[in-house]
């Protein structure tokens, strides 16, 4: 069965941006009949998902093996409610195939606030939310992957398979087993669970003690993160669908490196994507040229967690400049803008620099291991000012471990220094500084995984300090909503007991929780209350002897390393970049930098 777009006309005409739902993108997947149908689902809007490179890599890994792969994004509430009322099931973009007819649906989990949207999409697809309610019936295998999959426990009762780590190969391996087993049989799940990068929640039991704390995991399998060692030869989609309506990153993206050398202690991505793997200048140039030719974009973005650390950056930029058609602009990291601007065209309209010192004082930057100094920011900013930049964006975090009021007030100092650097010469425009402050969220698999998240009162007090200290001309301050950060913190370090809360919240009407105007705080509070779950249990400090809900997953990094890093944080000792010396996180055997290959 396929859904006919012409029959949805009356709905499409009433909703915002109907081209989100019609498919027909240039370069959309063309699927010949296939033994296996995979739907790459993204639990956020079309324009957000279409900008995501990861889902295109996963889809490509299926297509490369002769399977069919199509996309589906979370429809905005207007369209979602309308198709539900009309009895039209959620369908995939290119094939217009109802999601329930696929063999596997894989959801990409980019952040915790998309969890209700996963339930929302299952519901729109007419698929029972809970695994137990699907058992024994013909439904697609429900899989999840992406960064949040490193602690998938809050979703354990809803999903069949969790893909942990790099998705280039293992995701499609599972399809092969599925076909060999003739469907999602018990044998299929047992065989899949043996693969590196696969976790099958049904095959693990969590044991609790009398107080309700986790006291053990019972399973024959030890889920391990999948790591693609050879990024240079890894699958990369050389052509990609061009979104119908403007997407959040409307440009070509190449992935320069995976992983980050720096190891900032709050940053989950800095640990769960270790070790750093690079693509060669030749490969990246080829991929960029192919994307520009096949999409028609006129900008290339060099993605990685820290592109400035790519050792062959100058060579790469030269190569791109020599190979890409004239007029194609490159997006460069702000810290390096000065060193390259004379040589490379950037988008001429770009006048804003972005820095993320994360903490105001050097003391606190040492605690979080954020290796960026005032001097670096100032020297980068000053030379950028000289070539016409007139706006600076600064990102900070509030509520970091050991933070005191002086650390917060030190943010003022950075702003003042930038202002005086700008004022040293006569410039045409006035300087704009925007300071954006988010609330620290302790995440699994970081040295801060045991830390408490600040309480609401404390965050409010800290925000007030900032409002007072940063009340200066030319500086605008924005901060993140506390409740959003708290919800993210609860689910980031959550366990299986959150399943009823999540389901209840969805049933009450929560979805698009990451969108400020959609987040329904009162309904979430109601859901926690009705389920008898205190969110404070999840945001509190965890004991070092506690079994953490994600401890059963082998991410490749020693828990002892995290504990060591936490102690170094308390002593304000910086652990340098992996480029300089190996700090022995546990991945030495797989790490090129540990072997001295940089």
């Amino acid at each position, binding site marked *: 069965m396929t859904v006919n777009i012409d029959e949805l006309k009356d709905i499409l005409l009433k909703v915002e941006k109907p*081209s989100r739902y019609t498919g027909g993108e240039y370069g959309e997947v063309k699927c010949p009949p296939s033994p296996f149908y995979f739907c790459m689902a993204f639990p956020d809007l079309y324009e957000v998902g279409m900008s995501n490179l990861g889902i295109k890599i996963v889809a490509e890994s299926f297509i490369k093996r002769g399977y069919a792969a199509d996309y589906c994004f979370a429809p905005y509430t207007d369209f979602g409610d309308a198709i539900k009322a009309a009895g039209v099931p959620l369908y995939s973009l290119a094939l217009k195939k109802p999601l329930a007819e696929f063999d596997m649906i894989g959801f990409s989990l980019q952040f915790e606030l998309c969890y209700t949207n996963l339930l929302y999409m299952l519901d729109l697809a007419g698929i029972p939310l809970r695994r137990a309610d699907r058992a024994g019936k013909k439904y697609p295998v429900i899989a999840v992957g992406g960064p949040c999959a490193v602690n998938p426990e809050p979703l354990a009762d809803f999903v069949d398979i969790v893909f942990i780590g790099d998705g280039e190969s293992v995701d499609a391996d599972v399809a092969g087993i599925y076909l060999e087993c003739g469907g999602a049989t018990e044998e299929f799940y047992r065989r899949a669970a043996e693969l590196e990068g696969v976790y099958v929640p049904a095959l693990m039991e969590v044991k609790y003690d009398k107080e309700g704390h986790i006291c053990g995991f019972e399973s024959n399998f030890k889920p391990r993160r999948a790591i693609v060692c050879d990024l240079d030869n890894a699958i990369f989609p050389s052509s990609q669908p*061009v979104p119908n309506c403007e997407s959040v990153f409307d440009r070509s993206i190449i992935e320069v490196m995976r992983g980050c050398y720096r190891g900032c202690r709050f940053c989950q991505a800095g640990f769960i994507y270790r070790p750093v793997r690079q693509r060669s200048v030749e490969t990246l140039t080829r991929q960029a040229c192919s994307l520009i030719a096949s999409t028609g974009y006129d900008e290339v973005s060099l993605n990685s967690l820290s592109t400035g650390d790519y050792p062959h950056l100058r060579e790469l930029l030269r190569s791109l400049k020599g190979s890409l058609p004239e007029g194609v602009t490159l997006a460069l990291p702000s810290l390096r803008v000065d060193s390259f601007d004379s040589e490379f065209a950037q988008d001429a309209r770009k006048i804003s620099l972005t820095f993320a010192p994360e903490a105001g004082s050097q003391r606190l930057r040492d605690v979080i291991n954020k290796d960026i100094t005032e001097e670096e920011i100032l020297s980068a900013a000053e030379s950028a000012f000289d070539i016409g930049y007139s706006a600076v964006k600064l990102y900070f975090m509030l509520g970091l471990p050991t933070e005191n009021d002086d650390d917060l007030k030190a943010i003022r100092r950075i702003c003042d220094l930038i202002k005086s650097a700008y004022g040293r010469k006569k410039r045409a425009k006035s300087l704009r500084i925007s300071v954006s402050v988010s609330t620290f969220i302790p995440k699994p698999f970081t040295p801060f995984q045991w830390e408490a998240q600040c309480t609401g009162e404390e965050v409010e007090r800290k925000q007030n300090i900032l409002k007072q200290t940063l009340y200066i001309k030319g500086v605008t301050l924005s901060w993140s909503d506390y409740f959003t950060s708290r919800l993210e913190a609860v689910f980031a370090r959550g366990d299986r007991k959150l399943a009823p809360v999540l389901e209840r919240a969805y049933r009450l009407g929560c979805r698009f929780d990451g969108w400020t105007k959609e987040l329904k705080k009162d309904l979430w509070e109601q859901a926690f209350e009705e389920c008898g779950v205190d969110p404070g249990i999840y945001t509190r400090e965890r004991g070092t002897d506690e079994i953490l809900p994600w401890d059963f997953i082998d991410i490749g990094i020693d828990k002892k390393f995290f504990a060591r890093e936490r102690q170094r944080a308390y002593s304000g000792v910086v652990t340098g970049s992996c480029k300089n010396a190996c700090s022995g996180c546990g991945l030495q055997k797989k790490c090129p930098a540990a072997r001295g290959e940089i």
Partner: protein
Amino acid sequence: MIAFKYTKTDGAEYLSHLDLLRHIYRTMRRADIDVAYSGGYHAHPRIFLNNPLGTGIKSVAEYGAVESTFAGDFMEAFNSRSPDGVKVTKWAYVKENPNYANCIVKCTYTAEGIQPFDIDNFLSEKSIVITDLRGREVDIRPRIYTVERRGDRLLFTLGCGENNLRPDLFCSYLEKRFGGHAEDIIKTASIMSGDEFV
């Protein structure tokens, strides 16, 4: 300059005008059709399209022009790299910008599903007042040029540009007055004050 006639069908009828412009620009980049840029700080590609079509209305008679030195088969090059619903059906080199946004004065549309009614009687009315999308009362009679029935379909020509009447608005008026439900509204012709390609 190259002037061209193109379609907006197969889902492309839901593209906004700005997104359509972006698609046409990217299609030309993919097809190696060079596009001249306007001067100035915010340089933009010199592609000019006729007036925006209402969302959801298909068309086989859209017009556009592009400042380009491209010397090959424009239609073949464009269509080999364009989305399914946006296809060039006719093209020509022109001396100057035909300015389709200005010179298209009337458009012909067809629609299915409107209950048959006495067309002569309808056209003999001196004034037909409707409430437009902004809630204003407008006399649309001067903007209706022809109405004919061809089998199951109604064929009608309405004003465009300064004298614009949206076909979906016209159809919903007819639905309310005579019954039925307009399906599949398609713009079939754009009528210009001068020639198609000059």
